[in-house]
């Protein structure tokens, strides 16, 4: 009796399991691992809604925050990667391609995407990464209540004169904050990259990023020195160098809006707007704060722009993955995504009217008119350099270590990292 009961229940179980598996197979789904959380995650889910309703595909979003690189690597090595994942940066995307992890996205029609971004997502002529939005980094933010809506400084010399003039009156011109938890130092790498583009030009910049010139090269040294002229000068930065090192990057611009202001200029990407509004929700874009483009330094190189972007890649090639990526490449999806966040759309068909405010619209125009655009170099370098030695080098340099020592140390890390 009990034996028969057992066999009957076993058979029932097996049938039930088969039915369940069949049922699950019927529900089309795709898993996406992202690094966004909070408002960004909400915006991403909003973006996916029309897609899910239209196609019936269930998009399972897994938000792992800033641990994404670690978790993605572990899951990939274990043979269990998500179908689709946001890449921390193009450098790591290339590493996954080299290990044969990513599928080429040749099914995408990227004719509405600027060539610069298509190229950044490509390895060996094949597209592996899709950019869904960008951040423009070469911007200087200021308090428009003090300097007026149309304020702008158009040359490096004038910028330094402006800085010197304020310092003579006992006021610090710049708000700089390099603290960012375990990633401390990255805002300084953006400064140096922006300067490097303006003093050495895009070709040498590319060589630097690919480690075809050493870190001890005079051009790299000069970029550090120009950054140091500001960041290491206690009279030019709010709170002195210790203030620069201990202030969180997100808190840093808030000092422009205190009475009296602690500082007057802040070089940071488009995304900093949400931090400014987080600290002072009543401020109005353009009226109370605004932007101008980080000025040219060497006239020969004009005004190149530095930026970064949100990158998506696929580990599996299924019809659902294809549909999802086609959707994310579209103007429709990107309009929702950037409209919620104040990021800049990649798809050129996105109507500028979707941007939440005039500052974002202005940044989008600036980006569109760019003659030379380069991606954040530290994001393209191997992690041991771009997310390690370079960050640490910036902190060491600002805290007073001699530049030759700093550059020699980054070079040593680079020799080891690029060789592998």
């Amino acid at each position, binding site marked *: 009796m009990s034996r028969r009961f057992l066999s009957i229940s076993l058979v029932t179980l097996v049938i039930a399991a088969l039915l369940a598996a069949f049922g699950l197979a019927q529900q089309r789904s795709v898993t996406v691992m992202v690094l966004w959380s909070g408002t960004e995650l909400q915006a991403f889910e909003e973006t996916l809604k029309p897609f899910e309703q239209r196609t019936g595909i269930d998009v399972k979003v897994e938000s792992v925050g800033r641990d994404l690189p*670690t978790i993605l690597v572990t899951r990939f090595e274990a043979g269990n990667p998500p179908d689709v994942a946001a890449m921390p940066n193009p450098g790591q995307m290339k*590493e996954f391609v080299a*290990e044969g992890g990513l599928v080429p996205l040749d099914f995408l029609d990227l004719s509405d995407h600027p060539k610069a971004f298509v190229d950044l997502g490509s390895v060996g002529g094949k597209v592996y990464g899709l950019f869904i939005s960008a951040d423009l980094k070469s911007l200087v933010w200021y308090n428009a209540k003090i300097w007026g809506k149309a304020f702008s400084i158009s040359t490096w010399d004038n910028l330094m004169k402006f800085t010197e003039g304020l310092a003579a009156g006992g006021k610090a011109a710049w708000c700089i904050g390099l603290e960012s938890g375990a990633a*401390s130092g990255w805002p300084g790498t953006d400064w140096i990259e922006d300067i490097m583009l303006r003093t050495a030009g895009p070709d040498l910049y590319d060589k630097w990023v690919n480690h075809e010139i050493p870190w001890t090269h005079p051009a790299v040294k000069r970029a550090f020195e120009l950054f140091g002229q500001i960041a290491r000068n206690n009279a030019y930065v709010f*709170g002195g160098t210790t203030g620069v090192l201990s202030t969180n990057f997100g808190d840093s611009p808030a*000092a422009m809006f205190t009475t009296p202001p602690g500082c007057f200029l802040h070089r940071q990407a488009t995304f900093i707007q949400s931090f400014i509004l987080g600290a002072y929700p009543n401020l109005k874009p353009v009226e109370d704060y605004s932007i101008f483009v980080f000025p040219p330094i060497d006239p020969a190189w004009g005004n190149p722009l530095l930026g970064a972007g949100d990158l998506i890649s696929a580990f599996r090639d299924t019809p659902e993955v294809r549909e999802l990526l086609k959707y994310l490449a579209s103007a429709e999806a990107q309009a929702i995504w950037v409209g919620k966040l104040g990021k800049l759309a990649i798809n050129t068909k996105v109507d500028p009217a979707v941007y939440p405010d005039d500052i974002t619209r202005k940044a989008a125009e600036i980006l569109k008119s760019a003659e030379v655009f380069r991606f954040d170099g530290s994001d393209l370098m191997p992690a*041991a350099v771009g997310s390690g030695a370079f960050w640490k080098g910036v902190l*060491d340099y600002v805290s007073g270590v001699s530049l030759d020592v700093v550059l020699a140390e980054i070079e*040593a890390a680079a020799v080891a990292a690029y060789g592998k």
Partner: protein
Amino acid sequence: MKRGRAHWLYLAPALLMLGTFLVYPTVHTIIISFFGPRSDKFVGLANYRTAFTAKPMLLAFRNNAIWLVVFTALTVSLGLLLAVLLDRVRYEVIVKSVIFLPMAISFVGAGVIWRFIYAYRPAGTPQIGFLNGIVNALGFQPIGWLIERPWINNLALIVVGIWVWTGFCMVILSAAYKGIPKEMLEAARIDGANEWQVFRYVTIPFLKSTIAVVATTMVVFVLKVFDIVYVMTNGAYDTEVVANRMYKEMFAFRNYGLASAIATILFLAIIPAVLVNIRRFRAQEALR
């Protein structure tokens, strides 16, 4: 069944667990420490050479040495001092509970708490950090506690460790202290010994093996110190420690070979402390 076979059956589950979770990972780590960043090509001792010559590693070794000396000396001596002195007061239990309390906080939590205590704001703006609030009130410029190298920041981090672990040392030493026969202390006093002499010639010799166990436990902890440094500075401004370097090489830079080499070095460094600890512990057990 023959005698002498059955015990394997009983041992099997434990051996299986030990083998899977301790022996296999250890052996695997040692093996891949001889391979390159992606464990695909054999590189011999190259990772060990890097571990003992690269500048960030030498710095980490130096800092671990500072931690080893300062942290161990202070936790054990403060713990001993508190154990002996608190034995003489009525509100002993309350004070001991308060000092032991930080043990209940994770190191990450302790790191976050102390980041606030050490917080720096530019001079002239309100100081939100407890320490700089005091410094400011006394009329001095705020200090970048976690930035000023090489002593202030490293000691600031070590203080966090001491804050967490002193309670542990105190509780163990206090229990041992209470085990000293009162007659012995009284006899010494009647014979004319002053309090210092009682402490030096009766208490210390009696507590010697407990002190050794506590000290080696602290040494084992300090060699693998990670959380506090990771949360508070992530090794910036020359505060790097070996375990944090290992984490970076493993998870941030994906250099499995070098990370495994560092893990192996750390493992070998800890073995003597663990052996001493076990031997002392056994000796103590035998006494009971």
